[in-house]
């Protein structure tokens, strides 16, 4: 079977870590490169966390690059209330056994796409700063992007403001540049990702796999689950893993085609992904938006991926 080549752009992060495991353990995709951005925490930490997670499960041959330290038009706000001080509190991980590449995130994406014979799918799961810079600076490579499947946004509701999701709220202008890029886009929005949760019982199944990846998953969920239990969510939502899952098997999600454009100038609504599902704006549809997920099948997909790893 032909593996779909993907690049993950992340701000690791508990659910980012699990998204990495999903990508690495799934035969349907091949992880060509990982780039990191400021988001859940500062980029030095998200970069370091990414290296630690990959090292832990013995994956040291994938290029990892450090990306944006700050956002286009607004200062960075970290989410340490969700992910802890390190950006990945909980599991005790050894220091990384390999370093990243010398290239910047944008340069690594550029090089990977340029050198690839096949089209590449991008899976961003943090603020879209790196991806927007890539879109702006490499317009000639956009035809080689199969799709951008990003975790972010919401049609209704939000987690950073009443109407805005954290990633798009952090760098709305970057999100707008990506949404207007003309590349096919899947928006894995909160409308579905909050339902892509893992229950406490399911968490134990991961632990019982007994491999490093399984135990890591369980330990990540031990910490991440505490925050989500505190705020009354049903389980620990695997927001970021959805960006990869939607590439592996889009049928897991209920999708609607819509025009999505960023709210850039709202007093209360800045950072909202304005999602026009009825066509009332008359704007061209540019996104497949997730509105629901087959949760059990999603967890099963993740389970078999984690089982495939060390």
């Amino acid at each position: 079977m032909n593996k779909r080549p993907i690049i993950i752009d992340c701000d690791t992060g508990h659910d980012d870590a699990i998204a990495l495991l999903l990508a690495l353990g799934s035969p349907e995709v091949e992880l060509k490169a990982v780039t990191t951005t400021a988001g859940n925490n500062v980029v030095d930490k998200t970069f370091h966390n990414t290296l630690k997670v990959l090292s832990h499960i013995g994956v040291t041959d994938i290029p990892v690059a450090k990306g944006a330290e700050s956002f286009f038009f607004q200062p960075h706000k970290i989410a340490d209330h969700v992910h802890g001080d390190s950006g990945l509190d909980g599991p005790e991980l050894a220091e990384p056994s390999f370093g990243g590449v010398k290239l910047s995130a944008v340069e690594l994406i550029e090089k990977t796409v340029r050198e690839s014979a096949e089209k590449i799918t991008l899976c961003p799961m943090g603020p879209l700063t790196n991806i927007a810079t890539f879109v702006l600076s490499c317009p000639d490579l956009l035809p080689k992007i199969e799709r951008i499947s990003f975790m972010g946004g919401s049609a209704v509701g939000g987690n950073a403001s009443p109407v805005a999701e954290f990633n798009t709220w952090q760098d709305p202008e970057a999100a707008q540049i990506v949404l207007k890029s003309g590349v096919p886009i899947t928006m894995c929005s909160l409308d579905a990702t909050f339902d892509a949760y893992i229950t406490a019982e399911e968490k134990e199944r991961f632990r019982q796999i007994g491999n490093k990846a399984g135990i890591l998953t369980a330990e990540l969920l031990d910490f991440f689950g505490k925050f989500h239990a505190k705020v009354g969510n049903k389980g620990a939502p695997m927001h970021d893993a959805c960006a990869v899952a939607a590439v592996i098997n889009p049928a897991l999600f209920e999708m609607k085609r819509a025009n999505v454009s960023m709210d850039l100038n709202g007093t209360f609504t800045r950072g909202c992904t304005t999602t026009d599902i009825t066509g009332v704006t008359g704007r061209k549809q540019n996104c497949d938006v997730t509105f629901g997920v087959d949760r059990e099948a999603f967890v099963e997909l993740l389970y078999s991926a984690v089982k495939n790893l060390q």
Partner: protein
Amino acid sequence: MHKIPVIIDTDPGIDDFFALAVAAASDKLDIRAITPVAGNQTYEKVCRNVENIRQLFRMDGVRIATGAKCPLVSAQRTAGNVHGEDGLGGVILPKAQQKAESTYAWDVIYEEAKRAQGRLQIAALGPLTNIAIAVLKYPDLPSMIDKLFVMGGTNGFGNVSPYAEFNIWADPHAADIVFCCGIKTVNMVGLNLTRQAILDIPEYRRVFSAAGDGPLGKIVTQLIDYLGTRAHGLGNTAMTLHDAIVTAAMSDDKLITYFPSYVRVECQSENAFGQTVVFAGNGNRVLEQGEPNVNVADTLDLERFKSTLSASLEKLKGRVAL
């Protein structure tokens, strides 16, 4: 039992027609005044419609004030595409003998609020321009109003843009002033609620058959036919009567459930201009928010609404003036 003193602020509008029918038929409401406001159509048209409807329903003694002709700040935009050029889908009502009085809506609201001694309820069925001017002119007015029902806004998707509903979008600055002015009970009946009363057009015909086949029945049929054509033109086979739900709710606490929330109106955004941002609303996972200022309508007892509509028309059918 004391009737509830009410003012209906309205921009007829086909669903406003039914809202006024429900109010006129209610024996629990004492309609003190109707205050027209530019909205679904321009001011002259909605005012004429109010005058004609007052006469049709024999609402003698109900004052009609002079309301706002345009929004506070934003440019005027009407909904002629839904309600027709005259605001009532071309349905001709007998011409009213009596015109509106020259007293301004905001002054009438204040006078009636004083007279009602804290019991006044207001149904705002159009843009909130009149109410906003009233609370700006009379800072003590908010504390004198028992309840304000607003047909407007939404907790979720909108109708004139992805997240904005027409009435609020038509004058968002007025809406934000009203939501934040300190009226102790503001019940926001938004699209998320009124869409629970979306019925097939034949279903509405059944409900409206109570109007009989006399003069009222004929008018009602024409209005429904017009809405049906409009709905069809917009690709729908079903419709709702937003405003009528509000007047039905005024005399029936069991019709709608609400939840309290901090609600603000977006007045800057290009995409979300006129959106009611419901801080405790659907899908919102943010825990920190302002003190609740609005009760957001959440669920509707549809069967109850249908029977209120039928019963109101039944009651009015022998009473229309032609």
